[in-house]
């Protein structure tokens, strides 16, 4: 008998120090914001159950340290990521310029099976601040140049666009998850569902193989 498989989506948040990775995660999961978050040391994650297209999925959102030298040790936790969120601070051009580096770093460390189509989502955070230094257009252009990555302008402080951004993250991660299953050519018994999602999986079954 086919049973519904519990879906866990692993999401990694990357970006320069102090762009708001921890704040975004906490705003999304706990609906809270405080100025008092400390710099993240090591790695941590929060989980949240959400509905994505009629399916209940558990999002495991990984928050990491922003300083580059700390990346190498945490690689073990990147493995098996379903989506990577690249965050920059719209008031900090430097953090925007770093996006390329973060993206490459992730692809090297996590080595997803299909790097060209791995889902990234880009967030320009801190839009509540006045001293904006990276224009929407510039950010969009960059996203466009990377195969059209989804881009959101967020404020973790004022909860602007956070929910929407993570909804997209979840949806794209879920799509990635299904793809991985197809690649793995899992046996029938753990096919996701006999119900509503069936269309979806059988549809992609036909196309890829």
């Amino acid at each position, binding site marked *: 008998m086919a049973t519904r498989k519990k879906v866990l989506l692993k999401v990694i948040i990357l970006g320069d120090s102090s762009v708001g990775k921890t704040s975004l995660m906490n705003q999304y999961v706990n609906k809270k914001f405080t100025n008092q978050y400390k710099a993240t*040391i090591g790695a941590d994650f929060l989980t949240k159950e959400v509905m994505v297209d009629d399916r209940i999925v558990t999002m495991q959102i990984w928050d990491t340290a922003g300083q580059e030298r700390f990346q190498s040790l945490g690689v073990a936790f990147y493995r098996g990521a379903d989506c990577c969120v690249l965050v920059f601070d719209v008031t900090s051009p430097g953090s925007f310029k770093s996006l390329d580096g973060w993206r490459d770093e992730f692809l090297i460390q996590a080595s997803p099976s299909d790097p060209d189509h791995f889902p990234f989502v880009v967030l320009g955070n801190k839009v509540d601040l006045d001293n904006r230094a990276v224009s929407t257009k510039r950010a969009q252009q960059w996203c466009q140049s990377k195969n059209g990555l989804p881009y959101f302008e967020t404020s973790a402080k004022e909860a602007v666009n956070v929910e929407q951004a993570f909804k997209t993250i979840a949806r794209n991660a879920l799509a990635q998850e299904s793809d991985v299953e197809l690649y793995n050519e899992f046996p029938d018994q753990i096919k996701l569902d006999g119900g509503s999602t069936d269309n979806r999986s059988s549809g992609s079954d036909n196309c890829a193989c």
Partner: protein
Amino acid sequence: MDVTKLDEEELSYELRARGIAAMNDVNEMRSVLRGLLRIEVEGNSLMNTDSKVPGVDVKSEVKTCVKKLQVINAMIDNIQGDRYSEQYRSADAKLCHLMNRVDKLPAVEKRDQNDRSNLLKGILFLMRKMEGMASNTSVVETNTNQNDGAAGAGTVVLYEKTTTTEMNSTYESAESTASDEEVGTEYFVQQGVAIKSLSKLHKGSKSHKNAETHYTGLLRIMKYRTAKFIEWKPTEMSIFPDVDEWNIVDTGYKQNGKNKNDRSNIDIKINLATMKSYKMKKHKKHQISILQVNGSLVTFLFESSPISDFVTALKTLLHTEKEIRHHRPTGVILVLGERQDSDPLCQSIKELKIFPDQPPTSTVWSFISGFQNNPVEKTYETFAKISDVLLTRTPDTRPDQEVAELLNRAEEDDEYTMVDHPPPTVLPPRPGIKSRGNPLDQTTFYQSMNDEGRITNEDYIKNIIFYGGCEHSIRHEVWKYLLGYYPWNSTREQRINIDKQQKTEYERMKVQWMNMSSDQISRFNMYRDRKSLIDKDVYRTDRTLDFYAGEGNDNLVKLHNVLMTYVMYNFDLGYVQGMSDLLSPILMIMNSDEVESFWCFVGFMNRVNTNFELKQTGMKKQLNDLHYLLTTVSPKLENHLKKMDSSNMYFCFRWLLVLFKREFIYSDIMRLWEVLWTDIPCANFHLLICVAILDNEKDTIINENYGLTEILKHVNNLCEQIDLDKALTTAYSIYEQLKQAQPSLQDSVNELLGFSISHSETILSSDSNSREDDYEKALSMNYT
């Protein structure tokens, strides 16, 4: 073969080998190849074995293959996960591809043949390295046994049907012939062992519910020149009625004797190298089932003798590990490989230096030695078959899983533990440690100074601090000694001078950054980066404490100033996240005095600066050292961590980077740091504290069967939940425990804990009063 793991060049080759012209789009290539492979899984190879692959030049092809071999070797070395991990699957797919490729190398000249045979050796080695890849060996063995059968020796063998028919009569292995004629060494022998069932398990195997015929016989484990075998020969026949739970197996064994009812012709031989796993039955401890890599299952019944001797014998010959599925042991014992012995053949092959770092496995080399003695055509053909087997086997890992699950269904847990590495040193029981003492008080501290203001008994003071910390009111003074700002034996006058000098020195460095113009800064990228990080971190360091709370708090400016000056003091290291955490309590204790805070911070950083290096070598070393200690102190927990892919100890990263700053409340962290700064009982006492805390969580972690992420979460959640006094006493108790076991400890552990004869002598004679006297004094003062 997982096509997503192949690159464009490899895809193109695979397609050309199947007569398909080049395509431009990688995804299209993958899709087409995936389709073809699916057809091949059904047994219809599309590979044209006779004709050459278009566009292949021998010389460059050999080069390409050698390069690929090296790449795959490196990939295998880097595999961290299990056989379902991305890395494993990548290496697997690429190795498959390479096998295929070498298989099709056009060997025109003698040198080409050598190249090819060398490449094949390499591939074989890698296959073996990748884990139960001994299926190739079993194929060879099978075939030989068949030949033996034809010669009248009558051997029962277990094999994949497709391979046998193809392999039959093509190959004769020197190895197995030798092992049959040779008188081997007996490792284990037991009469009266019955064989319960014998089968080949693969997709579509049919269930059998009828009562089976069983035979009793002689069971032995034999070592021959090249391989070790479990051998069984029947002596009589008996019938067991209870076969209910064995309906999963297929009694499809072959009898090679002319008369199929002649049971005396039935022998069982299982090469240890082809053993995949074994399992004992939970409620019927006299049964053991052995599964081979090719899917065949043999069950022996020990009706009149204990089974434990046999299991022990297996364990001494094999590296094994308990299988874990869904965080629970399944009861299946996985065979990781044979234990090495210094076989002369291994040595000679080692001299070929294909992979100088890896000792060759006797099975592989025995196979190779056979293969070298054979005509080239036969060799070629044999490998072509093997590659077919591999090609069709790889994309489908299901039979293994199926078998494991079937085994699980029939049986449950067993009590056999991992015998993966040598048994750990048995430590003596942990000595009871007196509870913590009273903190160093003002009177004791100042009374310890002589007329000039020298502290006459540094060790005595340190011991009190080690046992009980300091009273808050004197921290301001004591920390300066502990952090090396004042030497312990300095006079009052000298200290006044130090204050003066160090103030000047601090101001000098502070001016350097304060005087930098914005124009200058605009061209000083490295400075700007450091400054920007400090600005961001100061703003979020301990802001919940009154001392740092509120906008425009002057202490934030001081925190910033000290960190900026430290950048000028040690520009190469610069500012690294975590440093502001280390400075924060110091600035508070020094009553916001920048100069004193700075130099105390320098003293602290001198102890821990390797934590912040760019390459993170210091952190890696510490995590590694911690792992060593844990292996010695709590092998059970270490085993669990290893199984859960967590032995890198990364979950302790935060503890070590900022010395528990994030784990304890502010008052506790000050107490803890004081203790650590005494360097009593050793400089790595913080690692023992980690071990103590983990040891305390051991039961939760193991019983709840926490995996990689759960362990991290659990450890992160310990934040502000740890009982500091308990952690300190446990850590000290562990220290004493290890000290007692010192002679039997590994050198690395002894070194970490400063256990060496010369060292302990220095301690005893370090001062006019010995350290032990100090202990006694400190204790008597604290406890009376």
